[in-house]
């Protein structure tokens, strides 16, 4: 069965329980953070932080409002990261999660560049020690503790290892308010639409990138909340469109070159 996760931001209180549950289940290292004036903490996703609640202040009718948006991998139906991965380390499982096999990943970061949701991160901790060069930073002992592999791409895997046991992802399990839910994708989308209609809000993830296995209910337009505007096209269409255009410009270029050659060649001979 294909599952999906529902993130109903209208029910989120910003407790960050999901962040903690994610770190604990996945044995991810803590982040060293600094006071930045922002409330989002840690400030962004990293190779060791797979979900983060973005804290945003918005004003509505002259009144300040907090907007909490839990962010993580969207688990695309047709993931660009898997399509571009040269070592076939990323796959979309039938249950919905998009999973990176960190024993196959070569650390080229093509997936990081290809993710339209900017949700894949390169985990560079301790790579120097891995190759016996000490350049400072993390101690050798930390390499395999705290989240396993280093020098590879990492991200939320929707706790596929919990789903396999019939359990919900760690963040869903821990969420106190029901802001994160889990279930059959079709039902989740239905739920999202009903809820969005009730709060006069927006659904995000139903169509983006051809559909994703994470679906949001938002009470403000996605771009106002800082979520990326992503084409509803599947990645295979995105690529096919580009190939056609590249070929088109190639043909135009060839015609121009041919014309230039045709019109300059005789003149050169006349000159002789």
């Amino acid at each position, binding site marked *: 069965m294909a599952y999906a996760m529902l993130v109903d931001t209208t029910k989120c209180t910003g407790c960050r329980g999901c962040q903690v549950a994610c770190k604990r289940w996945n044995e991810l290292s803590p982040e060293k953070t600094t006071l930045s004036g922002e409330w989002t903490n840690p400030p962004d996703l990293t190779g060791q932080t797979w979900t983060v609640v973005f804290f945003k202040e918005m004003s509505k009718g002259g009144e300040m409002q907090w907007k909490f948006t839990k962010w993580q991998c969207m688990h695309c139906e047709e993931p*660009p990261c898997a*399509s*571009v*991965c*040269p*070592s*076939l*380390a990323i796959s979309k499982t039938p249950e919905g999660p998009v999973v990176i096999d960190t024993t*196959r*990943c*070569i*650390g*080229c*970061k*093509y997936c*990081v*560049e*290809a*993710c*339209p949701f*900017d949700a894949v991160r*390169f*985990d*560079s901790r301790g*790579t120097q020690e891995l190759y016996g060069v000490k350049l400072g930073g993390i101690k050798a002992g930390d390499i395999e503790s705290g989240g396993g592999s*280093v*020098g*590879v*791409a990492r991200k939320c895997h929707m706790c596929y290892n919990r789903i396999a046991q019939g359990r919900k992802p760690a963040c869903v399990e821990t969420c106190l308010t029901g802001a994160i839910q889990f279930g059959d994708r079709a039902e989740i989308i239905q739920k999202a639409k009903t809820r969005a209609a009730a709060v006069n809000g927006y659904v995000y993830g139903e169509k983006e990138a051809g559909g994703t296995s994470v679906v949001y209910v938002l009470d403000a337009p996605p771009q106002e909340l800082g979520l990326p505007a992503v*084409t509803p096209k599947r*990645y295979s269409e*995105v*690529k096919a469109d*580009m190939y056609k*255009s*590249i070929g*088109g*410009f*190639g043909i135009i*270029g060839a015609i121009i070159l041919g014309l230039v050659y045709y019109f300059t060649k005789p003149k050169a001979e006349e000159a002789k």
Partner: protein
Amino acid sequence: MSVEWGLDIAAYLFLAGVGAGAYLAAVVASRTNRKKYAAFSAAGIHLSWVVTIIGIGALFLHLGRPERFISAYSNLGSWITLGTWILTLFVGAGILSSLFLTKVKVSEGATSAVQFIGGVLAFLTAIYTGILISVLNAKPLWYSPLIPWLFVVSALSTGVVAVGILLLNRPEQREVVNKIDRLDIPLVIVEIAIIAAFLATVGARDAVANLIYGSLSAMFLGGVLLIGLLVPLGLSVYAVSAERKKPVSPSVLTLGFVCVLIGGFVLRYAVLLAGQI
């Protein structure tokens, strides 16, 4: 957003372009007039795989787990996999071509067959470095069909002048070097036209603004447009007009060639950075 594809990838895209351009130019020149361009063609062929291998070295060091690089050959739907195959075959064809020119005596047919295949692979190398990033709609600045063609033209111009630098201190090759210098005029004009069309049509307006008057403007306007394109164009035009009276000092040509190389590198670095920030 963090920059994961930075200097090392820019260096690689540039060096692979130089190698591909040098090989293509060498093969085309040798087909036009084998005797006249013998030295040019040989220099181009030897240079092509050497710089490409250096570029591959940069790519290799970029990997988080270089010891697993062999699995980069796995996914034929990925442009890194396709590129890895193209590069491998191109370097192979380059080394073979070099051997046929020097140590190994083979029939003319075999030499030109390898050079033909090598030429096709060189073209594929040049265009793939652009396709690699242009298939990523996640980076709106890169999602442009003009990037692959821009990189092809840039590969040709940087490849040709790289060979030109090798021939500069050989007085008997002066005529060929002058030809290289002259060839740069149309290439630079085409490059400027493609860059203008790219900036005008690409979807990422804020990245374009960043290149033209934002944090990357010094790099883009100074490094790419001025040093990489306008200065060499001016020097070449000057050389062509002055050459009618008396030979131009080789340092003028050298300066132009070096500027083209700097511009080719900075172009790739600026496009990579602007796409990611």
